[in-house]
């Protein structure tokens, strides 16, 4: 500890006078306030808080004061320096914020510019609608079953109780594969041989029902399968027909299955796809592979039947009929069970099937079948990834 400073120099301590300290402080604050940008502030900072700044110099003088005065002067100078430092910090932040704001403004872009470097792709709605239907049944515990599109007649017809003379087996409905394997040995007189070749026993499947047959041959009951896929009939392409189309069929084989189960399953599917409460209706019909058989309709999900007899509110979805035809269904004909090795005394089953093209048409207002088969990207893109 040093001895008290006896050689007190009045000139030297002039700088520590209160008014001097206040002046230094005020000058610093004024300089900071006057600094218009961060560079000017930096200058002012050096001038007023640097080692050679008046307050720093004044601070050094404190040591020369007598003990009594030291504390006072220290307090004064320290207070002033603190005030200056806070002012500097505040101004610094102020100017930085201004700078940041300015940069962000300068960096602004027009966010409405197009961002379409890449053209989005899409899956075909026939694919996604089929998957959507499959998923309804998969969620219930069904398996998805698939099979060949070029199929033996036994699977496509015989096992399904189509008699050899059933009209569906005529050439005007079914594509037949030529018996000649076609690998290079192609005959030229195709027409003449067509009849004979139609005896090949191989066809393009006319429905996905052969997959049901295969499922029954491959599995032990209980069997619950959904069979989606492409099928073929010899229709020329026009606004409402296509020779290649898609079906989803359902088959359930178990002990004690009834038409009520069929009806409940249909109701569930329609509810899942078109909204709860949309009802289905069965009308008697005839199919070789089911007995009893029915045509199934669903209530129009758009007008809910309110357009019927109401010309002021026509419904184009159901043509103001109130009902939309879905497809065919019924209890699996016991003859089919026998052909597939399932005991009809013990097991019964139900099946239904419908066309995806038709459902896509009325579910999404597709007006022309050709739009679904031509692969025009303008048709498909809006459907995206799921339907």
């Amino acid at each position: 500890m040093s001895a008290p400073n006896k050689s007190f120099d009045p000139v030297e301590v002039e700088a520590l006078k209160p008014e001097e300290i206040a002046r230094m402080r005020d000058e610093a604050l004024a300089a900071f306030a006057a600094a218009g940008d961060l560079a000017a502030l930096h200058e002012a900072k050096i001038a007023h808080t640097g080692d050679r700044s008046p307050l720093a110099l004044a601070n050094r003088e404190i040591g020369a004061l007598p003990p009594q005065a030291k504390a006072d002067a220290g307090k004064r100078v320290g207070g002033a320096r603190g005030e200056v430092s806070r002012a500097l910090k505040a101004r610094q932040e102020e100017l930085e914020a201004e700078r940041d704001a300015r940069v962000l403004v300068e960096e602004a872009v027009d966010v409405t510019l197009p961002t379409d470097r890449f053209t989005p792709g899409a899956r075909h709605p026939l694919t996604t609608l089929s998957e959507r239907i499959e998923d309804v049944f998969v969620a219930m515990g069904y398996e998805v079953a698939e099979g060949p599109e070029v199929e033996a007649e036994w699977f496509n017809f015989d096992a399904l109780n189509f008699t050899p003379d059933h009209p569906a087996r005529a050439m005007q409905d079914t594509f037949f594969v030529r018996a000649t394997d076609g690998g290079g040995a192609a005959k030229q007189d195709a027409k003449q041989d067509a009849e004979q070749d139609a005896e090949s026993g191989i066809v393009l499947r006319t429905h996905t029902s052969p997959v049901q047959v295969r499922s029954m041959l491959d599995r032990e009951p209980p069997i619950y399968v959904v069979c989606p896929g492409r099928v073929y009939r010899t229709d020329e392409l026009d606004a409402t027909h296509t020779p290649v189309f898609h079906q989803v069929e359902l088959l359930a084989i178990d002990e004690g299955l009834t038409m009520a189960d069929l009806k409940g399953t249909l109701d569930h599917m329609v509810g899942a796809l078109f909204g709860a409460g949309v009802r289905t209706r069965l009308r008697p019909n005839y199919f070789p592979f089911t007995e009893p058989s029915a045509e199934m309709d669903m209530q129009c999900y758009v007008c809910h039947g309110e357009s019927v007899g109401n010309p002021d509110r026509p419904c184009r979805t159901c043509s103001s009929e109130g009902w939309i035809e879905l497809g065919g269904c019924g209890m699996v004909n016991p003859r089919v069970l026998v052909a597939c090795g399932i005991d009809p005394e013990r097991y019964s089953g139900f099946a239904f099937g419908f066309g995806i093209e038709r459902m896509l048409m009325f579910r999404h207002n597709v007006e022309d079948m050709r739009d679904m088969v031509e692969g025009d990207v303008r048709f498909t893109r809006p459907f995206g990834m799921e339907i």
Partner: protein
Amino acid sequence: MRIPLSWLREYVDLPAGETGRDVQAKLVAAGLEVETVEQLGAGLTGPLVVGKVLAIEVLEGFKKPIRYCQVDVGQANNTGEPQNIICGASNFAVGDKVVVVLPGAELPGGFKISARKTYGHVSEGMICSASELGMSDDHDGIIVLPPEHEVGTDAIELLELRDEVLDIAVTPDRGYCLSLRGVARETATAYGLPLRDPALLDVPAPNGYGYPVSVSDPVGCDRFTARTVVGLSPEARSPIWLQRRLQKAGMRPISLTVDVANYVMLELGQPLHTYDRSRISGTIGVRRATPGEKLTTLEGVKRVLDAEDLVITDDNGPIGLAGVMGGANTEIADVAADPTSGESVGTTDVVIEAAHFDAVSIARTARRHKISSEASRRFERGVDPEATSAAAQRAVDLLVLLAGGTAEAGVTEVTAPSGPRTITMSADHPDRVAGVAYGRETVVRRLQEVGCDVYGQDELVVTVPSWRPDLGAPNDLAEEVIRLEGYANLPATLPQPPAGRGLTERQRLHRRVGRALAGAGYTEAPNYPFTSEEILDQLGLDSDDPRRATVRLANPLSDTEPVLRTTLLPGLLGALRRNDGRGEHDLALFETGLVFRAAATPDEVAVAAVRLPVDRRPSDTEIAALNTALPRQPRRAAVVLAGTRERAGWWGKGRPADWSDAIEAGRAVARQAGVELIVRQDQQAPWHPGRCAALLAVVDGQEVLVGNAGELHPRVIKTLGLPERTSAMEIELDRLERATPGPVQAPHVSTFPVATRDVALIVDASVPAADVETALREGAGALLESVRLFDQFTGEQLGAGKKSLAYALRLRASDRTLTADEASAARDAAVATAVERTGAVLRGA
């Protein structure tokens, strides 16, 4: 089947106010598909009356002869004066009775009638044709009525112009509904009303002096009734009521005899055939044709018969295709005026055939000769064999009544004995099928309504009616009960399937592939599988290319596309061209689907033509043989792309689609299967020989070709008219699936810092970059985390035939921070291997 409501009411006493729509709803619920209810005479208002033509003046100077007529319409015009009417038809004469529509009336289609000036005269109405009145599509001039009708009589009622017609699409199992009798039975049941069965007629017993008939094929023909009516007046015409019923049912009136046969067929469902007795000689026979035998059928077509065809014969040979169509040689003669006497001449004596033929035989003959007649349609679906004699009787009665004929006493009936058909069914079977407790009483009552005889308590013995050949098993009977109880009244219950396992791995892969490609900017375009060998030529496939093993259709829709696709590319390229042609030029399309490869030998294929049994499960061997007969049908995925892949815009230039996009699409597909593809230079049609990649995957330790990708051959692009530089990829998903490794093993993630080293290597231009990369990878050893080619260039400074490949190596250890020396040592080792294997020279070394 068209059912006039007025006719239906003859057999069922429907409530007076019941409309066609009401009946439709009832019949639909009972299982008849009533497609439409036609409102005949809708929009028709009178006065429409009978008129008598008093005078005709033919006006000259017009394009066609125009008649100015005076017609007596009695007091229908309130004056009693003749009406002056202009008429363009000329099939009537002075004194004829015609149908006149007077001013103030309205014809169907909103056609208002008023007096108007035409052809220089005021025409006060119109003389009507059948088509103008909506009676038929007949445009053969105006209607000339039989002379007995009084002038001024209301013609709307006379011609029964107002009616409703139910149009029913009859399903194959309900042949009996191709008759008024059958539909009336359903209607009666639906309303709970009694049926007046038109087949319940008094029929004389068969005797030995009817027209001789000999049936030599009792299986093909189990019943043959022949009746003879003589002394028919050739002038007799079908009365209006009969003509109108035929017209409403959709048939054209022709002559009384033919009309009567058609009428009875519509009424009872039994097709009849009438022969001009003077034109048949000797015994009528029924037998199979001898091969090559010839017959000219009614419509004038000369047919060569098949040994399976059932024919009706006389002593001179075939006179008809049984149950399908009659022959021209015994046809009922058209009525004509005798040139000398002026009297009408025509058929006066007829033999009526009412027979029952085997459904399958008729179906085959009809199909073989491509004839679908009213008769064959009915026989194919099953006609009531018990109705033959009633039908013949009905025709006899009508001919006697309407044509002044005399029925001969001879009644011929040839029948093959057949017992009633019975089905044994437990009484609760319908309940178990429906899931509804109907109870025995209801079941029995409903079956009786259908026409069955039912005996037994818990076990029912059900004798089915003769007109229901479709009823053959308990489920058939269950359907009858359930439909009459109402499908609409079935409850809804949900079965409980066993807990499922969701989609298979294969199904999930197919979905992922579609999503991945769509996510990569491809749009799905599923195409028909029909294609041609010409397209395979245009793709430049060699003659022994496996894609030449096409499956050929016997009856393609178009002769230009007779085979099934063996590759997805033709269809996709067609879709690409179609889109391009419609102005969409930046295209990326994909398809997943089956291709078809003929794989079986002729002997293997022949198996499919052999009919397997359906009364038992075929053996596994039989099923396997059937499967072998089928073509191979693997699932593939393919893409095609053209135009720009990345668009130009404010951000800068775009990037055209090229070969590398096609290869990347292949990799994107393979990644969905967890497979890292091996890409090799390849030469394969239809790709550019220098820009074609083989896509390989490792299956069971072996590299297997799974697909190809690249830019298409310029010649293919030109031939097919595709956008330039079109690129394509095709990959077989079934093979890819086999390359799928097991579950992914999670990598160890090191948190130590990475060391990066770049190397530039100069190699011969012919060295594949993939080889260099493999060498670097293997040389660098375990410390290598990744290696990536980030630049390639060629230039004079490198020398001709050289290229520089720049790689970024990322090195990292799992347990420590690598030292600079360790990292450099690894890099040096990598380079050394590349130098050794590929002749690379380190650039800047």
